[in-house]
């Protein structure tokens, strides 16, 4: 496999001018089983490259803040930024009893040329006033877009002043699109504000065995499937950040017993800060795939160490897996031996490999759109990551121990023990998941996708909507793993079943057999093809 992968890399390199080639080469590695392999990540995309990456605003408002259901999310800027993030990510949500849900709405100041010239502060203030008058929300977010940062509108001052005026929480996010090198910068900015202004502001007591789900966005209803099982075992979910999230629940997060982290990239900052400030530890989980989900459930139970809980976990796993075993097995017989390429976000390219294996599909190539080196190589690498100018511009906030609310959730002696047994504040990264000889590519782009398909001819390509149709024109089934192609949930047990069915349908749908017309396959006894020499 390794030679084939070298060929892929070489073919890709042939396309590029010298400078681009040099830059891109460091973003690709063929796993060779050696101790440490370094990959370049979280660096600028080269201008002109047809990249899949988005912007800082997309990471902040689009990913982390937008899914909070009971806030009015005002985007301060021209209309487009708010418009494109409206209902397109499939982060589902419901109003709490008697509460509000604004996910069906898009709010923008729709700034005009005169606002660019004279400033948009007045308009933003009017927008907040109107939002309060019309909706009386509990909280409002204000997200900055590129031109707002450039003309110098002080959205933080507006938030502060308007918060005092209306007596509600107003959060401002300086997440102008040009900051950082991808969505990732926006995650960090959103994390910071949730930490400084939200978490720890609601001291409502919580029940025992309480969890926060971090980095779970309820795409296609994932969070609902995960919490269905967690509730069945006996856990209490204090907050989810941020899928189907509620501002008061997030404010209460510091009261939970454990943080479990699904998407490491987008939310690890909060997990770390909560641990420092409140003593609440975190473990890395993976809710995708039957085995991974089961393992994560066992890890959570082990953390609490309660025998009833541990036993109940095994019962639920047995009961749930029993329900899907036969059909999963049947699908596996149909898909066994097929291969996949995964290029998604900052966690799914890792998380889905196990689930694909469960239905007989091996991942040959994987990469992240906006991951950092630690998402590939594991958190051990963090002290050695060189911070460049683009990352330095993103504020790192320092939190301190909150003496009043800090508590060790479990005895220190047990912590040391558990650290050996659980993914305790640790993430080992994507590379470890993959077989020797597989290819890992960061910030995969259009021409690289084309080459990979041409040479490796995978049967499944998990990526985003911008790639989907070019991949399918090449005869390969492509599934959007950001938004699940209007399906889901894919997390948890029932989610794994849904995914298996969808992938089987996608790979086996009869349409693929019609790509070649009969006159292109059989000799024509009577009749001719137009431009026949082209097909000969």
């Amino acid at each position, binding site marked *: 496999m390794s030679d084939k992968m070298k060929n892929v890399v070489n073919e890709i390199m042939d396309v590029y001018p010298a400078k681009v080639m040099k830059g891109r080469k460091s973003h690709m590695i063929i796993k060779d089983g050696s101790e440490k392999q370094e990959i370049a990540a979280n660096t600028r995309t080269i201008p002109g490259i047809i990249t899949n990456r988005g912007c800082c605003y997309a990471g902040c408002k689009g990913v982390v803040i937008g899914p909070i259901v009971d806030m009015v999310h005002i985007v301060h800027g021209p209309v487009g930024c708010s418009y*494109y993030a409206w209902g397109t990510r499939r982060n589902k949500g419901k109003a709490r009893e008697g509460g509000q849900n604004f996910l069906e709405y898009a709010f923008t100041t729709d700034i005009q040329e005169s606002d660019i010239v004279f400033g948009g502060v007045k308009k933003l203030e009017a927008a907040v006033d109107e939002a309060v008058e019309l909706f009386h929300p509990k909280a409002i977010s204000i997200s900055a877009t590129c031109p707002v940062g450039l003309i110098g509108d002080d959205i933080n001052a507006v938030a502060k002043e308007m918060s005092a005026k209306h007596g509600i929480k107003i959060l401002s996010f300086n997440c102008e699109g040009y900051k950082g090198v991808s969505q990732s910068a926006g995650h960090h900015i959103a994390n910071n504000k949730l930490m400084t202004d939200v978490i720890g502001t609601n001291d409502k007591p919580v029940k025992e065995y309480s969890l926060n789900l971090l980095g779970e966005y309820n795409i296609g209803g994932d969070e609902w499937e995960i919490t269905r099982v967690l509730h069945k075992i006996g856990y209490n979910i204090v907050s989810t950040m941020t899928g189907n999230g509620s501002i008061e629940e997030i404010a209460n997060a510091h009261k939970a017993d454990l943080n479990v982290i699904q998407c490491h990239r987008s939310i690890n900052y909060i997990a770390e800060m909560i641990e420092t400030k409140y003593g609440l530890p975190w473990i890395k989980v993976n809710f995708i795939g039957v085995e991974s989900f089961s393992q994560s459930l066992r890890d959570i139970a082990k953390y609490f160490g309660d025998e009833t809980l541990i036993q109940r976990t095994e019962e639920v796993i047995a009961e749930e897996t029993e329900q899907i075993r036969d059909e999963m097995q049947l699908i596996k017989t149909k898909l066994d031996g097929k291969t996949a390429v995964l290029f998604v976000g900052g966690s799914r390219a890792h998380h889905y490999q196990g689930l694909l294996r469960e239905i007989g599909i091996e991942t040959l190539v994987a990469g992240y759109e906006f991951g950092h080196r630690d998402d590939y190589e594991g958190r051990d690498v963090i002290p050695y990551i060189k911070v460049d100018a*683009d990352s330095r511009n993103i504020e790192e906030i320092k939190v301190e121990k909150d003496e009043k609310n800090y508590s060790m959730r479990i005895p220190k002696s047990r912590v040391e023990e558990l650290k050996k047994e659980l993914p305790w504040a640790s993430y080992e990264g994507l590379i470890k998941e993959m077989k020797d000889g597989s290819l890992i590519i960061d910030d995969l782009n259009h021409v690289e996708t084309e080459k990979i398909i041409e040479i490796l001819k995978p049967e499944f390509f998990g990526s985003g909507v911008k790639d989907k149709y070019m991949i399918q024109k*090449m005869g390969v089934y492509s599934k959007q793993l950001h938004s699940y192609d209007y399906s889901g949930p894919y997390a948890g047990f029932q989610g794994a079943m849904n995914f298996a069915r969808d992938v089987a349908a996608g790979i086996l749908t009869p349409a693929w057999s019609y790509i070649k017309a009969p006159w292109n396959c059989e000799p024509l006894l009577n009749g001719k093809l137009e431009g026949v020499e082209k097909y000969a």
Partner: protein
Amino acid sequence: MLDQTKGSYKKRTGLKINPAKTCQPIGAMYAALGIHKCLPHSHGSQGCCSYHRMHLTRHYRDPIVASTSSFTEGACVFGGKSNLKKGLENVFHIYNPDVVAVNTTCLSETIGDDVGEIIKATDVPEGKTVIYANTPSYVGSHVTGFSNMCKAMVTHLAEKKEGKKAKGVNILPGYVEPSDMMEIKRMATLLKIPFTMFPDTSGVVATPNTGNYEMYPEGGTPIKEIKKSGNALGTIALGEFSSKDAAYELEKKCDVPATILKEPIGIKATDEFIMKMLELNGGIIPKELEFERGQLVDVMVDVHNHYHGKKVALFGDPDILIAMTEFVIDLGMVPTLVLSGTPGKAFVKAIQDLFDAAKLDDSIVLGEEDLFSFHQIIKENPVDLIIGNSYGKYIAREEQIPLVRMGWPILDRVGHSYFPVVGYKGGLRIIEKITTALLDKYDATCPEEDFELVM
């Protein structure tokens, strides 16, 4: 659904809620795809390009390829010159398009990048072309961006060859679907009138699956055709908002007289298009078109009872709305509310003129408004049908009003790329959609004793 929408309509000054428009660059990107072997390039943050590609892809379910200058914070401080220069060099080396169509964004406009100057200072390979349009997101809407890119095609490409006899007609199709562009070409071909249509996305964003991916499919108007437009007998600009500026630019630049028409949606606007084509070039009305027109009239007579007198609210883009409002009036329906997010007094006037002519004194037209207002007004003045893009589905569900999907974008149904709404054939399709929507609702909700086989 939309539980927070309450209260009566009141104009807001700061907050847009559920916009009925989006920003310029996406329209420019769509227009640029209608040039053969063209790669659109977005000069700004990579997120703009990503969002535009995403949204166009969801609407067309076909590959939408475009490159970006990938601005960083540094580029905002020092200007985007180096990003664009490097970007263009990489684009030609790696992706080898014939043309690159650069659109600006709110970012590059706000920092004041002079894109024309930067392109002049770039080594564009021999035989390759770079055109550009200024498309600040804080002016106009996606329709303005489409219009600006069409105008840029004329500014940068159209030529008048002196001493050459004027021939044929230019058609600017406006911001319509690939299926519509295909239908406009079919009608012009039936009329046997030589024509150049640009942009033409029909063979670019609605391509077949052959097992081979072509980054630049066979479709799109070739550059040499656009160049030739300077020697045409006249230009027909379909849709004032999306095509007028390009047509006037051609008139100014190459003396090709411009005629502004409505989009040929509905019987009257299609008649006007055909009459104008004949007037400019001469020709024969083919039997096929006469037959199709007769079929449309026949159906209008036969099924009018299903929609005559029904109240309809429409929202979307000005050019589609102006033609559609005229058509629904011709169908005997009552448009009580017509709303666009795109700014422009001409839109309000055009719709008001249609209302006045039909003596619809109580009907409301609003420009530069949003779907929250649209919903508030419908709550106060209920309608039988909504016509608009996919974003209307929330209101339709909440108010239990059938929705006919028309306009851009349609993100939740298929068909728009393949079946036109323009021309006589398109008129038939619109009637099919309207009657089906109304009758499906009736069938699903009427008392059992009123449920009938024949309707």
